[in-house]
């Protein structure tokens, strides 16, 4: 779904952050992305959903080179991608339910009430359905962001540190949700520091581990 060919990226006025990226995220794959703080995990994800454009080489989204997509093309691609941002942002004037269903609203699709209720229950937010985002706790916001990312059952889910603010039981529960979606054929990429989470996934899914080291994204096999 996403392919990098000798791609690289550097923020303007800084030395290149990532170089020589050559990898693909095929449909149905499950990846973890790890690396020290500031290595470029978030940057890599932003390249994946077209918020940043590679400064060298090329990135293809669903087969099209990002540089050849106009703004509406990027928007169309994003409707097929669910993103959990590291700093979960919401529309603070809407209720949690409205925020979670926002991707459906934007796509002009109906809201599947049953699925919504199930999803809200799974992430433990049923009690907060009518709360405004600023009234939520940090962990509740993170869970809401994940719910928003998966409500459309997108082809690809990119989650940036989705369990940084939740306790271990909830983290495992969220991981389970992503594993379930992966079983349905969706591709999943999770950026995280939490090696325990990666270990916990072992029993459920055959995930590949990517590690950012020396400005490269390397497959890290089984060596945890």
């Amino acid at each position: 779904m996403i392919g990098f060919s000798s791609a690289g990226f550097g923020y303007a006025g800084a030395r290149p952050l990532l170089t020589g990226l050559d990898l693909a995220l095929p449909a149905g794959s499950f990846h973890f992305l790890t690396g020290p703080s500031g290595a470029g995990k978030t940057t890599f994800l932003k390249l994946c959903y077209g918020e940043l454009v590679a400064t060298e080489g090329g990135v293809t989204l669903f087969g099209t080179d990002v540089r050849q997509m106009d703004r509406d093309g990027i928007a169309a691609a994003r409707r097929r991608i669910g993103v959990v941002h590291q700093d979960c942002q919401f529309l603070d004037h809407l209720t949690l339910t409205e925020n979670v269903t926002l991707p459906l609203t934007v796509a002009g699709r109906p809201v599947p009430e049953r699925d919504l209720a199930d999803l809200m229950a799974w992430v433990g937010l049923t009690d907060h359905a009518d709360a405004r985002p600023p009234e939520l706790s940090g962990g509740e916001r993170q869970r809401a962001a994940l719910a928003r990312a998966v409500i459309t059952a997108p082809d690809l889910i990119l989650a940036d540190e989705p369990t940084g603010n939740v306790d271990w039981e909830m983290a495992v529960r969220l991981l389970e949700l992503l594993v379930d979606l992966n079983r349905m054929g969706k591709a999943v990429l999770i950026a995280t520091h939490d090696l325990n989470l990666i270990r916990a996934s072992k029993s459920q899914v055959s995930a590949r581990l990517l590690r950012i080291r020396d400005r490269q994204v390397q497959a890290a096999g089984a060596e945890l």
Partner: protein
Amino acid sequence: MSAPSGPLGVLAARLPGRADTPAARVVPPTGFTAQLTVFTAAAMSFLAVFAIAMALAAGQLADRWQAALSQSATIRVSAPADQIEAQTAAVLRVLETTPGVGAARRLDDNEMRGLLAPWFGTDLPVEALPLPRLIEVTETGAGFDAEGLRLRLAAEAPGAVLDDHARWRRPLVAAAERLRAVSLVALVLIALVLAAMVTLAAQAALAANGQVIRVLRLVGAEDRFISAAFVRRFTARALAGSLAGTLAGLGAVALMPRAAADVGLLAGLGLSGSAWLWPLVVPAAAAALAYAATRVAAARTLRRTP
């Protein structure tokens, strides 16, 4: 941030921009920038109505005075009693062949008496007095060449003096024309200020809603979806504010005391007849300005959000 309140807010709340369409709902009620837009539109529309009223009044006045000008020349013939009739006849002959002169008419004794009445009362024995003859000249639209006429009169009737009243009234007409021009310039300025303020208010609202725009882009909203929400909102607000301001302006103009017609401009701000319809253009223009300004501002902001 609170929703706009007060009567303007209530009005804005009734307008289509607030309708519960999904696109409209995703933009928050942007608090103070909203009030600012409504208020700016109201204040500017109020002023615009006054400027329009003034431009219309000045225009009418200039027209009226212009019309008066075209009939205001007088020729005075003073000569010894034995020549006066001959010279008067000569003047009338000259006038008949002067291009631009519509009609020429000798004032009769009653009219002479009327002219002098303010000073000497009505019982002046005009017939008995050795008064000069007065000839009233009516110009055609194009007007006549006063200097040329003066030269011809000097040759044919040495006792005739052309009194071109125009020179008294012309500055007044010029002043009225200038006032009309000033009013129109003011109207353009007001429109520019409104456009600038709505643009700035829209940009302030867009900047304050950076998070909203980022979230919407993140979940795959297209530019036109986001833009439409803001544009509709601001257009509705400008329309609401402008309607309120226009009505207040019309009310204020209607309340202005009117002086007698002859005082003319100074109190003639009132609108009459179909002129009342002109200010109704203001809300439409304000909404159109707000629409254009917000579109431009939204397009610019969106281009900066990846």
